[in-house]
C-alpha cells in the first residue's frame, strides 16, 4: 500500500442554479488573457445538451481517455506512443476553434465616435482571432437552459447513446446543470499523452499541472483528455488547464469556483488513496465495475492500517486529520451518494457529483402528487426511466443501480426531514430504506443543506495562520459563521460527515 493524498471536489447538482458565477469568476482569475479567450476552465453545461466543446463526450471522434486492450492492459484510446509520435506533425483529434467557438469582442468605439448620421450606430461583433467583423454562431454556452434544444439537444452524445427519442418539448423536458472543471484524475490520460513530459501530477495533493517552461505545444494533452479540460493557448503556443487554484488551496482556501458558488454546492477535501492500485482498478474488465473499483482505491482515513501507511509515506498529521474530516470522503464513501463523471474513460476522475433528484421531484409534483413522500418518490425513481438512464450514462457507465441508490438516499432524506420539520414523530423505516440511521440521515442533511464554509471546505495547508487571516478578509462577507475548525473540534463537535 502506497498512500497518497488527493484533493477532491464534490458538487451537489440539485443545488446548481446554472448562474455561471463559477465560470465567470474562474475566467476573471485565470483565463482573461489573449490566447485563452475561448478557454473555460470551469464551465456549466445544460443537460441534455452538447457540452463544451461541442460533443466532447463523443470519444469515437476525439479518442480521449483510456481503453482496455483485449489482453487487459490499459492503452490511450488514440493509440500507443509510437503512433502518437507519428501524428505529431498534425494532430487529427484536436478540436478546432469551430468545435469551441470563435471568441469575439464588439466595436464599442463606434458607439461614441460614429459621425452624426440617420441610423443609430451599433457595436458590431469582431473576431478576436482575425480582427474582422464576424457573425456570432456559437459559444461556450449556446444551448443554455435548453435554448434551441429541439435543434441542438439531439446531438447530445449521451442522448444518442441511450437511444431514446426524448421529447424535448417544453413541458416534458427534464433538465439539470452540470458544472465541470478538470477532474484532476488519479490516472490522467492528458499526462500520459504529453510527449514532452511537461504535464505532471503533484505528489503532495494530486493536482494536475502543465509546466509552462517544458511544454512544447504538441497539443496531445488536449486530445488525450476525454473531458477536454486542457486548452491550447493559441498565442503562447502552450497548453493551459485548471490548476485547482493551487495558490489558494496551498494557503488553505477553496478554489475560486467553490468560493464564489452561489448555490454553495461545492465541497473540497482530501482523499487518501492507494497509488499502487490505481492502474489495476482502472483496468477492470467491465465498465460497470469501474465505479466500485474507483471507490475501492480510496482508503478509509479512520483505518489504523491506512493511517500507519500514510505516516510511513510522509503524510503530515494535519493532513491526516483533514482526511478524516473530509466532506468529499463523507459524500463519496460514507453516504455513497456522490458519483464520478464518466468512469468509463478510466482516468479515475476526482470531481464527484451528487446526482440531481430534482427532475424526479419536478415530474412528481407536476402530476399533482406529493414530491416529499418517500414511496411516491421511490416509485417515481423507478418509473422515470429516462432521467435515471441518462444519469447512469453520465456517472456510472450505464449501470442504473448506483444512481437509483443515490437518488433513493436523497429521497429518503427529503421525506425524513419533512416529518422532522412538521414535528411528526420520526419514521425509522425511512432512513432504513436508504440503509442509514435517522441520526446519519440528519447529518447528511446538515452536510448537504446547511453546512458552513469550514464544513464544506476542509483544506489543510502549510500556512494555516496566514490562510485564516486571508479567510477572514475574504470570507466574512460571504459566510458569517466562520468558525475556527480547531477550536470547534476541541469543543467536542464532530466534523462534517463523521457519522455519529
Amino acid at each position, binding site marked *: 500500500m502506497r498512500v497518497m493524498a488527493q484533493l477532491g471536489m464534490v458538487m451537489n447538482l440539485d443545488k446548481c442554479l446554472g448562474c455561471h458565477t463559477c465560470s465567470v469568476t474562474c475566467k476573471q482569475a485565470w483565463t482573461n488573457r489573449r490566447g485563452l479567450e475561448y478557454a473555460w476552465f470551469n464551465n456549466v453545461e445544460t443537460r441534455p445538451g452538447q457540452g463544451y466543446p461541442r460533443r466532447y463526450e463523443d470519444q469515437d471522434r476525439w479518442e480521449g481517455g483510456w481503453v482496455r486492450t483485449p489482453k487487459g492492459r490499459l492503452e490511450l484510446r488514440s493509440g500507443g506512443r509510437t503512433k502518437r509520435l507519428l501524428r*505529431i506533425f498534425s494532430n487529427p483529434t*484536436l478540436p478546432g476553434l469551430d468545435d469551441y467557438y470563435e471568441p469575439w469582442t464588439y466595436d464599442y468605439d463606434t458607439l461614441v465616435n460614429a459621425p452624426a448620421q440617420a441610423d443609430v450606430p451599433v457595436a458590431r461583433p469582431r473576431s478576436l482571432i482575425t480582427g474582422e467583423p464576424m457573425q456570432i454562431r456559437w459559444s461556450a454556452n449556446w444551448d443554455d437552459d435548453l435554448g434551441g434544444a429541439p435543434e441542438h439537444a439531439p446531438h447530445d452524445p449521451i442522448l444518442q447513446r441511450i437511444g431514446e427519442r426524448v421529447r424535448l418539448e417544453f413541458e416534458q423536458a427534464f433538465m439539470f446543470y452540470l458544472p465541470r472543471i478538470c477532474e484532476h484524475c488519479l490516472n490522467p490520460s492528458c499526462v500520459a499523452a504529453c510527449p*514532452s*513530459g511537461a504535464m505532471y501530477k*503533484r505528489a503532495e495533493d494530486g493536482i494536475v499541472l502543465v509546466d509552462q517552461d517544458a511544454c512544447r*505545444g504538441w497539443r496531445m494533452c488536449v486530445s488525450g483528455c476525454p473531458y477536454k479540460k486542457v486548452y491550447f493557448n493559441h498565442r503562447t503556443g502552450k497548453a493551459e488547464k485548471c490548476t485547482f487554484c493551487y495558490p489558494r488551496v496551498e494557503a488553505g482556501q477553496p478554489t475560486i469556483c467553490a468560493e464564489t458558488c452561489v448555490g454553495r454546492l461545492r465541497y473540497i477535501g482530501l482523499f487518501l488513496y492507494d497509488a499502487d492500485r490505481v492502474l489495476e482498478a482502472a483496468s477492470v474488465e467491465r465498465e460497470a465495475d469501474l465505479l466500485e473499483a474507483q471507490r475501492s482505491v480510496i482508503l478509509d482515513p479512520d483505518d489504523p492500517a491506512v493511517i500507519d501507511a500514510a505516516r510511513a509515506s510522509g503524510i503530515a498529521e494535519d493532513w491526516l486529520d483533514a482526511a478524516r474530516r473530509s466532506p468529499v470522503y463523507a459524500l463519496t464513501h460514507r453516504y455513497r451518494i456522490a458519483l464520478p463523471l464518466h468512469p468509463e474513460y478510466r482516468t479515475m476522475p476526482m470531481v464527484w457529483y451528487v446526482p440531481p433528484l430534482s427532475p424526479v421531484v419536478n415530474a412528481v409534483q407536476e402530476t399533482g402528487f406529493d414530491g416529499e413522500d418517500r414511496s411516491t418518490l421511490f416509485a417515481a425513481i423507478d418509473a422515470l426511466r429516462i432521467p435515471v438512464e441518462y444519469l447512469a450514462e453520465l456517472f456510472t457507465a450505464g449501470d442504473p443501480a448506483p444512481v437509483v441508490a443515490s437518488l433513493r438516499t436523497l429521497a429518503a432524506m427529503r421525506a425524513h426531514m419533512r416529518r422532522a420539520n412538521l414535528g411528526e414523530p420520526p419514521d425509522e423505516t425511512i432512513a432504513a430504506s436508504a440503509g442509514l440511521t435517522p441520526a446519519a440521515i440528519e447529518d447528511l442533511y446538515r452536510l448537504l443543506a446547511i453546512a458552513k464554509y469550514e464544513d464544506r471546505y476542509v483544506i489543510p495547508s502549510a500556512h494555516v495562520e496566514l490562510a485564516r487571516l486571508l479567510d477572514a478578509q475574504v470570507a466574512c462577507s460571504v459566510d458569517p459563521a466562520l468558525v475556527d475548525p480547531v477550536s470547534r473540534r476541541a469543543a467536542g463537535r464532530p466534523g462534517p460527515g463523521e457519522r455519529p
Partner: protein
Amino acid sequence: MSTVLWIAFPYICLTSFAVGHVWRYRYDKFGWTTRSSQLYERRLLEWGSPLFHFGILGVLAGHVVGLLVPESMTAALGVPEWLYHVVAAIAGTAAGLMTVAGLALLVYRRRLTPAVFRVTTRMDKAMYLLLAAVIAVGTFNTIGINLLGPGHDYRLDVAVWFRSIFWLQPDASLMASAPLTFQLHALLSFALLGIWPFTRLVHVFSVPVGYLARPYVVYRTRGDRPGARPPRRGWEAPGS
C-alpha cells in the same frame, strides 16, 4: 574573399547556432514551442505539415549520408559511385519534392488564412524566406543538376569541405571550385543555422524521443518553494 565565405562565415554561423541555443534555452524556455496554428486552420495543415516534416526528415537523412560519409567509405563497402549517385538522386528527388510541396502548402496557408497570418511574426517571415531559398536551391541541385543535368559529385568537394570545418582545418579551396548553386546552397544553409536559435525552428530540438521510454503518468513534488520566486514570463505584464 574565399576565406571569408568558406571559413569565417561558417564559423560565425555555427557559433551563433551553438551560443544562441544555450542562451535561448537558458532565458526563454517559455518561448520554446512549436507555436502551432492548428487551432485556427486544420484542413491544409493536415496535408502540408506531415508532407513537409516527413520530407525534410528524408532530406536530413540524405545530408547525413552525403556529407558525413566519405566517398572512400562507401567505395570500401563495395558501392560504386554510379549506384550511389542514382540512389541518392532518386531518393533525394522524392524527399525534396515532398518538402517543396509541403512547404508551398504551408506558406500558402500561412499567407491566406487571416487568423494564421495575423500571428506570423517578422522573424517567422525572415525564417520562411531563408528556409524556402535553401530548399529551392537544394532541390535544384538534386533535380536540375544531379538527376537531369550533368551531375556533380559533391562528395569530392562540398562534403570534404563541410567535414573539414568540424576538424578545425577548413579548406576553402575545395568550395571555390564547386558549381555556383552548390556554393549558394551552402552559404544559405549556414545563414539559416545562424538565425536558427532565434526562430521557431528551435522546436526541432524538442523531438520527444524520451516519451518512448518514460512511464505514462509523471509525478512531481511541489518542492519547498521558499516564498516568492523571481518573476518569469508567462503572464502578460499589466498594460501590455
